[in-house]
């Protein structure tokens, strides 16, 4: 091999090396691959999940153990709620919780738990997470079952002797249960109309 030949071979292998570096380069220099996880965050423990997992689904999934009666609910309501929602749930000043059935299609609809809410489970969920307004998440599941029972009873949606628990609550049938429809918009000035 003469000088030029050697140089050519060396040049070719250098080119090959460069090609290999370029081809492999991004992976080597930047690490990882496009599809890999970032491996951020850590696996949550069951206890950590349980501490925050307070939501209740319409089928009752997520309801805690416990029970409550209308009678017990009357006491919870008087002690923790009546000051804002009124003695019987209609006086306010905070939102009316009772009444309004049959008014939704009128000029003056009254939207309450009894007239408007589609699921009784939502009532438990909301009271459990957000009421009483000044001390949210301070009531026990028993107290929430009880006050839920009382509000449903006041709305004529529960018999006085029914005990509310994770079995019976999802079975309460709300008057406006089938009153919700999906979003049909754009309903005014539809494109092309």
């Amino acid at each position, binding site marked *: 091999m003469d000088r030029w030949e050697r140089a050519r071979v060396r040049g070719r292998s250098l080119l090959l090396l460069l090609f290999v570096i370029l081809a492999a380069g991004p992976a080597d220099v930047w690490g990882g691959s496009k599809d890999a996880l*970032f491996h951020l965050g850590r696996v949550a423990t069951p206890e950590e999940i349980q501490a925050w997992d307070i*939501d209740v689904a319409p089928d009752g999934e997520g309801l805690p153990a416990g029970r409550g009666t209308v009678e017990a609910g009357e006491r919870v309501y008087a002690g923790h709620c009546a000051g804002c929602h009124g003695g019987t749930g209609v006086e306010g000043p905070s939102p009316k919780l009772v009444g309004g059935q049959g008014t*939704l*299609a009128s000029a003056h609809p009254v939207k309450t738990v009894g007239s408007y*809410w*589609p699921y009784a489970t939502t009532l438990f969920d909301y009271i459990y997470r957000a009421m009483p307004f000044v001390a949210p998440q301070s009531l026990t599941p028993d107290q929430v079952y009880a006050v839920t029972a009382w509000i449903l009873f006041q709305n004529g949606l529960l018999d006085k002797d029914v005990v509310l628990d994770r079995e019976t609550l999802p079975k309460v049938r709300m008057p406006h249960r089938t009153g919700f429809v999906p*979003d049909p918009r754009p309903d005014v000035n539809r494109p092309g109309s």
Partner: protein
Amino acid sequence: MTDKDGKSMPNEREPGVPSRDAPVTTRPKEPPTRRAFLTGATSLFGAAAAHVLLAPFLGHAANGSGDPTRVPGALATEYGRRSPFERAKRLTKPQRSRTPLQDLHGIVTPSALHFERHHNGVPLIDPAKHRLLVHGLVERPLLFTLAELKRFPSISRLVFIECSGNSGKEWKGPKGKTVQEIHGLTSTSEWTGVRLSTVLSEAGLTPGAAWMLAEGSDAAAMTRSLPLNRVLDEALLCYAQNGEPLRPEQGYPLRLLVPGYEGNTCIKWLRRLKLVASPMMTREETSKYTDLMPDGTARQFTFDMEAKSVITAPSGGQRLKKTGYVEIRGLAWSGRGRVEKVEVSVDGGKNWRTARLQAPVLPKCHTRFCLDWWWDGGKAVLQSRCIDETGYRQPARQDLVEVRGTNSYYHYNAIQSWQIDEAGNVRNG
């Protein structure tokens, strides 16, 4: 144009008018206490030292009464504040505040003026202690610190957020006085965060995961269910607004942002994402944020904020002082994409003209429009209507009410009319 109450000039002289006859050593407009203090300080340390001690706003710099070229100005500050002459402020109720749209320019809302709405106050959250839990129908339930969320690939985007209750009182007819009072529950910021989809792939969705419950760590533990197939493309988990960490009232340290969706879906103080098969029917998606129709049914999951526009100047409560040139200015936006066109009328909708759109015109973002007008001193009715990239045209009030009645409260996006009388007073009507 001035406010109804005719905000007077803070300065005796016309601002910016050159004058040599206001020597810096006489300060007739200064409050006596400060003058006394300053004189004493000056004799003790000399002007420069006093200046350093009494920074940032001193003497002429404090009340602007003199020639600012003859006295050293204020010193540098660590966290800037606006000029003491500027007074634009939010209109507050305990659980909401409205953006002063009539006082703003361009499309970005200053963070301090971004509207707020909360359901039981603004929580105080230590970012070092805040966690985001992702669980439910996932392969690995994960817990993230804020620092970890900030390490993910980031994305910034200018997006408007509008409360679905914005302009809600107008369903019953023209009620509010000013553009702030009527339409102030909409604002635009540049939001920065990580894509929701990035964080969810880290946890791994399992088959059946179709909805996501998002929950805040405020005293309302505010919750909304969102359909994954509609939010995965665009939703962000945001930790920054206009370049700095979120304001407390905007969800510090972490909020969800679903571009184009009604504001309450952008859960603030976000602490939990639970993947589920179907909507959880929370109070905020049944009792509230549903639209009652005349037949007694209610529309549910009405997420999109439809195209809307409003003239911010001249607007309710303002007064045109002189005939002649007026630049009509306003904002337009659509939760379904870009603003294609804004048309303006000065005769209550008989004739329309296409307004100029200021760049940038971004999808799901406030867009600034302007139009030249020469007011002849007569009565006028100013209106604007937005057409978005889907071809949807912002409706007239009667067209909207004909379909939806007047009881739905949310999602009011009809054309706003401003009546102008011969005295130049602008009123809602």
